[in-house]
């Protein structure tokens, strides 16, 4: 009993972290993954941990210089943790008009115009193990009045940045009314 415990601890010490996850599952096979002639580093370069595909860190706040410096900070933190930051962009702000009424009447008391500014940082291929660490770094450093949301990237988020082309939309609607685009015949090469 004791010798097996000793053996296990020795093996534990000698065992270096991670030969690949895939290899550990296929313990006793004779063939290598990817074929006999594929170089081994291809498998070794793959991540041993599941990855999140694309995440957006969206920062919203009413004070935009603060927001911009926070975006810079988030970018540096992410790159220090060896996370691929693919893109950073700004979305046009949401403008709000806020009215307060005098008590017990609808007489306008005060009117305020506020803009909610937004900045985004896009992260690609982040390992699941690093994600909680990033979240705790973000929540520890979030500045006054800023709301941070981390979510998966939607094509909608990309669409919001562009001016919608009304003509294009009209034409596309017309085409669908007429019954969809034409089916192209395959051209035979002579």
């Amino acid at each position, binding site marked *: 009993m004791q010798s097996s415990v000793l053996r296990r601890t020795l093996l*534990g010490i000698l065992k270096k972290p991670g030969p690949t996850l895939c290899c550990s599952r296929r313990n006793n096979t004779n063939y290598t993954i990817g074929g006999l002639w594929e170089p081994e580093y291809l498998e070794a370069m793959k991540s041993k941990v599941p990855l999140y595909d694309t995440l957006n860190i969206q920062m919203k706040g009413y004070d935009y210089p603060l927001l911009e410096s926070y975006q810079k900070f988030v970018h540096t933190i992410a790159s220090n943790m060896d996370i691929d930051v693919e893109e950073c962009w700004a979305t046009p702000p949401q403008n709000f008009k806020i*009215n307060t009424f005098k008590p017990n009447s609808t007489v306008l008391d005060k009117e305020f115009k506020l*803009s909610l500014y937004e900045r985004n940082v896009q992260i690609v291929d982040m390992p699941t193990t690093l994600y909680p660490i990033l979240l705790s770094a*973000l929540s520890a450093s979030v500045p006054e*009045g800023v709301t941070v949301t981390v979510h998966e990237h939607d094509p909608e988020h990309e669409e919001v940045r*562009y*001016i919608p*082309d009304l003509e294009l939309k009209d034409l596309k609607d017309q085409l669908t009314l007429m019954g969809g685009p034409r089916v192209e015949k395959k051209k035979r090469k002579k």
Partner: protein
Amino acid sequence: MAEPLKKKKRIDPAVLRAREERKKKKIEKQIRRLEKNSRQLKPIDELEIPPAVFDTLKQRAREPTVISHEEMEERALLLKEWSLYKMKERMNDVQLLDKMIISQQKAMDELRLESEELYQEALAMDLNVMPFTIKGPVHTPPIVNYDSPDGDYTNITKDWFQPLFVKQ
């Protein structure tokens, strides 16, 4: 006086279809032409120079003030001290993050030795934290028993789908 009603000529359905196809082709060609021109990004209000300022740029230009030699030296020394302080702060942050990552890696290795199942569970994506919202602190805490006045919030962001001027 009504003329005797003309008999409606029967158009060959193939001809009809051909007409439809031609119209579709025209529309598709236009779509392709519009799509080739890359789309424009919406202008970002806080990054645009307001046109009033842009027009008076030349008037607003000033010559740089002359700073004495001692003042410049003082500023340079202050900048060095400040950058040293900020560097130490940044190094602290980076070291803290590194410590967290290393200790997590150690814990994962130990977990793996303990049980492979739990290790795989730990690696899996957690849907509770996706999406995650963090709210920043506020300047002053909320006032106790505050009687908030009536009012409303209206979103007056520019709606790009509605044209500014509706053609009559």
